[in-house]
């Protein structure tokens, strides 16, 4: 603790680290998922991907746009309306379906232009977070 410079890290609470580096004090808060470590410092979010136990890289933060895209429920909810049908051609940002959760309706939009190759979602059904609602190719 007595060194003049150099980083010095202490785990102060579960997932919370106090870092002293070059005289500056930082508090970093970590949330870990299966494949990445998310570090928050002063409200800023850093995603450190664990692609392989031996190799990590910092994620660019943007998902790829090419190829097949899944439209996924980002929270549990109820499908109140379908705005497209399987086989339809859609524009990027076009509304695909409406999900209601926590008393709020949300229109799920196409992440890119393409064709609806699968539409497992059904009106009136309840969906779980992470469930695939539509697939665009």
């Amino acid at each position, binding site marked *: 603790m007595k060194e003049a*410079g150099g980083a010095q890290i202490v785990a102060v609470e579960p*997932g919370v680290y106090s870092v002293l580096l070059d005289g500056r004090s930082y508090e970093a808060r970590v*949330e870990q998922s299966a494949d990445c470590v998310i570090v928050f*410092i002063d*409200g*800023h979010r850093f995603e450190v991907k664990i692609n392989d136990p031996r190799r990590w890289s910092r994620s660019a933060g943007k998902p790829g746009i090419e190829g097949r895209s899944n439209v996924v429920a980002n*929270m549990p*909810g109820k499908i109140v309306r379908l705005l497209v049908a399987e086989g339809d051609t859609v524009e990027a940002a076009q509304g695909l379906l409406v999900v209601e*959760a926590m008393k709020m309706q949300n229109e799920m939009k196409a992440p890119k232009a393409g064709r609806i190759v699968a539409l497992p979602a059904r009106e009136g059904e309840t969906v779980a977070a992470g469930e695939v609602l539509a697939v665009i190719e």
Partner: protein
Amino acid sequence: MFRKVLIANRGEIAVRVMRTLREMEIASVAVFSDADRASLHVRMADEAEWVGPSPSTESYLRIDRILDAARKHGAEAIHPGYGFLSENAEFAAACEAAGIAFIGPSSESIRRMGSKTAARQMAVAAGAPVVPGAHTALSGPAEARVFAEQYGYPLLLKAVAGGGGKGMRRVDSAPDLDAAFRDAASEAQRSFNNPELYVEKLIERPRHIEIQLMGDRHGHLVHFGERECSIQRRHQKVMEECPSPLVAARPGMREAMGEAAIRVARAAGYYNAGTVEFLVDTAGDFYFLEMNTRLQVEHPITELVTGQDLVRLQLEVAAGQPLRLSQEDIAWRGSAIECRIYAEDPYNNFFPSPGRITRLTRPLGPGVRLDGCVYEGWTVPIDYDPLLAKLAVWSESRDTAIARMLRALREYDVAGIHTNITFFRQILEDAEFRAGRLHTRFVDEFLERRRPFDPPPDLASIAELVAAFHLKGVAQTAPRPDAACAPPSRWLDIGRREALR
């Protein structure tokens, strides 16, 4: 005074009311649904009663079950909070009929104000300015089209039974009208069980400024000044302040709005807490919008500036006591701001983000007030409004209050779910906000112009260092047999070098 009061609500407002009840040595009775057994409002109550399954239609909106609970527990009064049954005239009437004091206005006042068209007519009669519009329910989109031909676009479709932006649609041109009418009516039907709509001229870039009122059952009414509530997303307030920077800059405006609000309330025979909402146009003229016949979410900022406990006053008035304040007793000191901390992702269309709160660090220190109903380890249920807490600050001026709110938000950490904490920090740094140039489309315009929330350059390497350190710690508790011989990555390398230097 009452000896026992039931709170027909959940979440932060139930806790808020309980705190004043406890300070008044009145026993509190909580009600809860299946989803809320472990909610803080149940944990903090003196008594608690289960009222049904998680959907609010089967629990918090069940008048019969709420009244059964009140009778069973011997509650002498019911505080409805906001939302749920708070503006339900039938509920207020049922309380009256059951001989249980409803802590709010008469069912008759609620009914008069609950119909937005009837309220408008009452405001007109009381001499309060109103936005041009149809004072009665529309028969269909065709009637709105006739109105548009007279007043032009944009116009606003609103639910007759509405509130909170539900069943409300802006219409910018004739081709959008039919779809907007259909959507709004369907949403109104779902939300209020009444699809009726009315139409108003849309005031461009209006401010939303409201007046807090309190009246007793002996005809005495006072106002507590204004709150500026122009910062909204999806027609819902997310950030409020007192005083309004506009009103503070205009001598006499607070008094004029306060008097107009009192006139409308008096016309409705109003008592207990209520709020008259006004739209204010760019010229500074104000128009009656509606009256909310209950305590508002954002009441804490009025409490901070006036030093009054509005819930205590509600209880006193509901118990039949005369209001112990006259208008001259109400004084305003300093400036207060409230941020509604929601479980939502502001950068993904404010999408709700329920889930388990894995870590929670709250702001403390001078001038900070926090009203919440969450705790570490609690799971935000998917069944209700995603409001986690209301963070309010007070300081001597608007500028220092903004600085204090920024400080408080930087201390605030909620892990496991998304929140809008960072979003508020960005708004508070915005030059337009700081200049007090507010209007109800502020958030939309802000989202267009906002600069990315970029970290200072040194933070990325700190984050990498911490990730390495964290994984090393994780590895130590569950070691991988092959980890020792793996070639160190650049990040791990940094981590080791820095940590051991």
